[in-house]
């Protein structure tokens, strides 16, 4: 292959950032995200054990289900007993709790926050709205299924789920992390184009970089 071909392929591999104005396109990264391989079995097992015992949750209330996170955080149900702590920014968090319905305006922020989180990262979706639309199934402005747009590890059904159900959901997430089944981050990278296509289908004014980090 000549240098011209290689350049062309490299250009295709890069992200276009076409939604941004031309002035700003150079300011953002245009490389694609890459998958992260696991370490050897024993070391990865140890890391998974450590990860499952210190879940830092992004405290970003995206829907009405986020009201159930307040009793979970505070002394009544006290989630710090289980090694879960709220963090104010996506950069410091490892668990993204999507609280209930997600409107188009919110899903834009959800995608941005999810991509800004550092790996390993997990997603818990609570409420029936994230599973099949729930009571907002015929709304013009809320999505029906969350896992078309970001990968989801654990769903918690209910409208809205009580803090006990959330604790059960976090317990299930811990078991999955211990078993090494939470591959949402790599899944997002492998099916990156599919996720982007779905996201751009509903977000009509795409005015952010294709991959935010």
């Amino acid at each position, binding site marked *: 292959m000549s240098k011209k071909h290689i350049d062309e392929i490299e250009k295709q591999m890069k992200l276009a950032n076409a939604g941004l104005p031309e002035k700003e396109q150079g300011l953002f990264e245009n490389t694609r995200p890459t998958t992260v391989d696991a370490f050897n079995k024993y070391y990865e097992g140890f890391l998974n054990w450590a990860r499952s015992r210190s879940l830092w949750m992004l405290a970003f209330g995206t829907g009405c289900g986020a009201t159930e996170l307040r009793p979970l955080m505070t002394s009544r149900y006290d989630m710090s007993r289980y090694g879960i702590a709220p963090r104010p920014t996506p950069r410091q968090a490892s668990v993204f709790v999507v609280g209930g319905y997600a409107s188009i305006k919110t899903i834009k922020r959800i995608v941005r926050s999810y991509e800004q989180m550092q790996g390993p990262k997990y997603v818990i979706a609570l409420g029936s709205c994230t599973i099949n639309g729930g009571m907002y*199934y*015929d709304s013009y*402005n809320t999505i*029906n299924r969350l896992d*078309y747009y970001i990968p989801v590890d654990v769903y918690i059904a209910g409208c809205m789920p009580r803090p006990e159900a959330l604790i059960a959901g976090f317990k299930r997430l811990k078991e999955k992390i211990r078993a090494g089944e939470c591959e949402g981050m790599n899944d997002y990278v492998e099916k990156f184009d599919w996720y982007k296509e779905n996201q751009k289908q509903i977000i*009509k004014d795409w005015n952010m970089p294709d991959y935010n980090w």
Partner: protein
Amino acid sequence: MIDKTKKELEIRFPLLKLVREMHNYLHVEVEKASAMDAILMAKTSLGFKTLQLISSVDRMEENLFQMTWILENYNNETTLLISARYPRENCIVPSLSDIWPAASAFEREIFEMFGISFPGNPREGEDFLLEGWKDIPPMRRDFLTEEYSMKLYGERQPREHLDPRQYIGDMVGEWNTPMGQKRKEEK
């Protein structure tokens, strides 16, 4: 309290229609040409100094939009609603944003949801809730929300049966009481 307001409005606007009246609440409907005059009169001489809400109703059958301005007088705790009807095609309603700056937000929302334009609003056309909406405005009644949702966000699979009797059988309802048991044995 409200009688005085009503009397003064009736003197000024003879074509005024009374919709509803209570001891501290008055809803009137005026001609669209005199709607702004009525609102200004209510603000300057009748003491309704607060704008609470601007709302709009799509009357598709009559090919009209019904606009309602809700005003409040906190001195004697009375509410005044002034309605007017505007034709539905290329609907243009005067803006109130230079009288009440708060009206700007309501008008932007109505522009987004119904497509009613308010010339004179400095922030008209800015995104309010729907970012980058390209379809017809969603609160118009000819917008089919369920169809739109199915097309864009995918269908949802409903549960097949909702009858609890199928799942818990005799545990439910009438059979679960002593009288019910007796009746069941008789059957």
